[in-house]
């Protein structure tokens, strides 16, 4: 008879350790899922000079949008994206 409230109670507030394990698993998987994108963003934000001296896997000293402004200007992006 006492199994009924126990079953219902279990549904409302689930076992804490199981929830924590689930969060650890999901957070780890989510980070693994984002890793390739974060890696690409890091490579985009670092100046190449720093990468070539310190190597690709290293802590960045300086992050900037220089690569983006250079790409935008050197490719003459306005020429293609704006109607003339």
């Amino acid at each position, binding site marked *: 008879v006492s*199994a*009924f409230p126990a*079953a*219902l109670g279990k*549904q409302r507030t*689930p076992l804490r350790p199981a*929830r924590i394990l*689930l*969060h650890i*698993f*999901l*957070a780890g*998987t*989510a*980070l693994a*899922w*984002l*890793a*390739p*994108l974060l*890696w*690409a963003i890091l*490579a985009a934000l670092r100046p190449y000079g720093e990468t070539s001296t310190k*190597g*690709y*896997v290293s802590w960045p000293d300086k992050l900037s949008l220089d690569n983006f402004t250079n790409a935008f200007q050197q490719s003459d992006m306005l020429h293609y994206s704006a109607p003339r």
Partner: protein
Amino acid sequence: MAGVPTVLHIALVWVTALASVGLAFTTWDGIGFDSIKWVGLDNFRELITSNPQFWPAVQHNLIWLAALILVPVPLGMFLAVQLDKKIRFSRVYQTAFFLPVVMSFAVIGFVWQLVYNPDTGLINSLIGANKPGHYIDWIGDPDLNLWAVLVAASWRHTGYLMILYLAGLKGVDPALREASALDGANEWQTFKNVVFPTLRPTNTIVLVVTIIEALRAFDLVFVFNKGAEGTELLSILVTNNIIGESSRIGYGSAIAVVLLLISLAVIIPYLVATFRKERRS
């Protein structure tokens, strides 16, 4: 007005598809309609007997299909079931898993090139495999590159299937779960006997989507390594023959017909079985 979509559909889908099937029995360089020459089954004969890339491409397409069914389907379903547990930060996790799906395959190919690059990539830098002596060429080694690119494909496809399954799980009647909890079923029993059977429509969609995804695979590989040795796919052979410098439109169409036949052979028995089962129940 209803005629306009019909005309557009027939002109853009059926006429072009049937024209491609027709061209498979001809040779044509694509310049003027006079140069179309009927050659019967010659294109298929040449394809099967003397194209060194053809059988590897068929094999890779089938491996692609098997890999997408074996990894992203169970993984996507598993993640969806976990995220459906009214858990905190569920939206954050969903966003992380779904993010690859909103990017184009060209971007995905480029991102994974950064990860796999043998000299500067993330993996080789971390495990120290970018020095002479022990050097792992994820992109160029024909034994490795198909699996490397399949990781990227599964990475994207898992997120897509996770969302499809999550939508399916939202449609499961909560009363069913409650009933099975009252009957004393544990989590796994509830999933196996109550939730999974009600997911059958979702499973149909997921399998059809996965089959389509495996057989139309093209852009990811083309960006990753241009379909070099080890990653040939039928779609890449079609493109190389039709818009490559050879411009062999008849021959390329013959490869496209083979791809069409494989798609039909996979999807028709499955759909027939599904609809028959649905009509019976």
